[in-house]
């Protein structure tokens, strides 16, 4: 991990978050990891069609927020959104089924891996055009503010997204209206194949721009689930109480390529290895053991997670492809797609 960022990195405060929360954070990271690995396996078996964008290595961010959020809060994320959607409680079979284009998929096979959504769980969509969902998240936050519900919108996006116009508009808009929205930049050092530092005028693409919106500059270790959880709690609760938006930059790394087609050859030798040492799961497991949690407890969590992933895989595999009749459904609220009489 880039050592220069320590300057700004908020160290996880020495608050004891309690064993229950810790186990919850571990469980969630394991779920996200195992399910994502399964997605990769299914892709190798040619069962995942289209594209898919894994977030292996980035689980601590999704988990930290997933545990911190209230059930009625809202998540907005990108094509790299499997983990964020699962972290809100969407079913694994719904996610894997969608990747495989099956009826049991969250979107019935219509949306595909880049658009995972589970409104009932507060997962308000995955957006595949860079930047577009930032203003949308602001809009949801506006609605919470308007109705006084104390709901918060959390919006995840990548480092590369900080250079597109919609980022700027959404940040200013949210700051001026003091909206309860948390913008979380997952800085994994790369756009698709291009290192972010080669195309960005500042070192920290998000944090170094916070002041342009009157916001605090926040860099956090995105591979540390405790740090992510505490950061999430702090700014979500502040937003809930009317304190306005936050922009958080979480430093992390993706273990695999940008998308299924990408072997990630553009990365300098040794970089991945360095980051594998900082694998969020590995680090968190070690920490919990050091804190005296029994290995067997963690083993159980892992085994249970694997069982769930297996069951979800079976469900998804057994699910039929969408029916051709579905094609014309749900363009409009009346359930159909008629544009003429």
């Amino acid at each position, binding site marked *: 991990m880039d050592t220069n960022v320590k300057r700004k990195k908020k160290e996880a405060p020495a608050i004891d978050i309690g064993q229950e929360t810790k186990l919850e954070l571990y469980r969630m990271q394991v779920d996200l990891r195992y399910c994502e690995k399964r997605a990769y396996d299914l892709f190798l078996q040619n069962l995942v069609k289209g594209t898919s964008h894994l977030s292996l290595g980035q689980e601590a961010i999704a988990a930290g927020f997933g545990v911190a959020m209230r059930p009625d809060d*809202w998540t*907005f994320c990108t094509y790299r959104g499997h983990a964020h959607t699962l972290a809100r409680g969407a079913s694994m079979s719904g996610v894997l089924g969608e990747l495989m284009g099956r009826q049991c998929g*969250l*979107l*019935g096979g*219509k*949306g595909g891996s880049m*658009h995972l*959504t*589970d*409104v009932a769980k507060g997962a*308000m*969509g995955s*957006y595949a*055009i860079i*930047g*577009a*969902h*930032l*203003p*949308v*998240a*602001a*809009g*949801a*936050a*506006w*609605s*919470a503010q*308007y*109705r006084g519900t104390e*709901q918060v*919108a959390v919006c995840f996006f990548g480092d590369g997204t900080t250079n597109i*116009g*919609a980022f700027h*508009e*959404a940040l*200013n*808009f949210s700051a*001026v*209206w003091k909206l309860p929205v948390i913008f979380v930049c997952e800085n994994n050092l790369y756009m698709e194949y291009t290192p972010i530092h080669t195309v960005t005028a500042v070192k920290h693409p998000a944090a170094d721009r916070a002041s342009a919106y009157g916001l605090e500059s926040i860099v956090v270790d995105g591979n540390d689930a405790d740090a992510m959880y505490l950061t999430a709690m702090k700014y979500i609760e502040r937003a809930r109480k009317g304190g306005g938006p936050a922009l958080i930059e979480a430093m992390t790394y993706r273990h695999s390529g940008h998308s299924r087609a990408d072997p990630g050859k553009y990365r300098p030798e040794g970089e991945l290895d360095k980051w594998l040492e900082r694998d969020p799961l590995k680090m968190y497991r070690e920490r919990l053991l050091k804190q005296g949690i029994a290995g067997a407890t963690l083993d159980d969590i892992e085994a249970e997670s694997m069982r769930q992933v297996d069951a979800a895989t079976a469900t998804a595999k057994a699910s039929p492809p969408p029916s051709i009749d579905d094609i014309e*459904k*749900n*363009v*409009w*609220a*009346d*359930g159909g*797609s*008629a*544009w*003429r*009489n």
Partner: protein
Amino acid sequence: MAELTYRDAVAAGIAQEMERDENVVFLGEDIAAAGGVFKATVGLLEKFGPKRVRDTPISEQAILGAAMGAAMTGLRPIAEIMFSDFLAVCWDLVANEIAKTRYMTNGQISLPLVIRTANGSGSRFGAQHSQAVENWAMAIPGIKVVAPAFPADVKGLLAAAVRDPDPVLFFEQKSLYSMKGEVPDGEYVDELGTARVLRRGKDCTIVALASMVHRALDAAAFLEKEHGISCTVVDVRSLVPLDTQTILAEVALTGRLVTVEENPRLCGWGAEIASIVADECFWNLDGPIVRITTPHIPLPSADELEDHAIPSVERIVREIREKID
């Protein structure tokens, strides 16, 4: 019935819906304190307060994104994009996000929102502030498209748009803002997807939209009086949903179709209607389908040039005389 301007009918329609439903909110640039650059929203801030009627930064993507996010979480926002030309700076929100989200999420997300925008020519504002871009919108699956020609339709269709569970792009015609007309008092809600036959003739069916409706009517009156050519005039009102049945029926009666479009020629809405008629009404046609459009050029600003570019009553008369007689 009161006589209102097209402009005042906008404010009346919005006010009617805001009074009815407190989830209706309204945002845009200079729409609140200033009452809109076309003065179409004067009085709304005073009536409904700054929580419901909000001025925004110059951030069209944020405006539409905010409307979208609010709509999917229970509000019914009305967003103003000041000039329809500016839809280009937030086209992603319209074409890729708002229009597609219900379908992509297999119906999980509803987006009951309205985007109002001032469309069209006649103000000598030049190529970036005078476009008629209703055809851009019609080309996008998943968004409804309305363009009223009369003050009463402004109020009634705007109310219908706000109540509609789907996103609606509502084109107000700049050149009609000061036009006056009878508008029903009290609650008034029209129906989207319905065309209106404004006069019936036997020689040819003219299909027109927004400002072109008035020119078509004038041309039809002139043709009847001076040349004995009698025309049906259909006001399309709504491009999506499209009232194809009314159009096909009226073309079948006269055997001829003329479309009058303000949008530049290529891929205009008239082409779509022409293609429907050339397929489904072919055997009823007595002669070629004629499209009268603005030429396929950016719009010039000088009076003479702008006037010449947009289909005029004279041009409609001339083309119909040449091609239909």
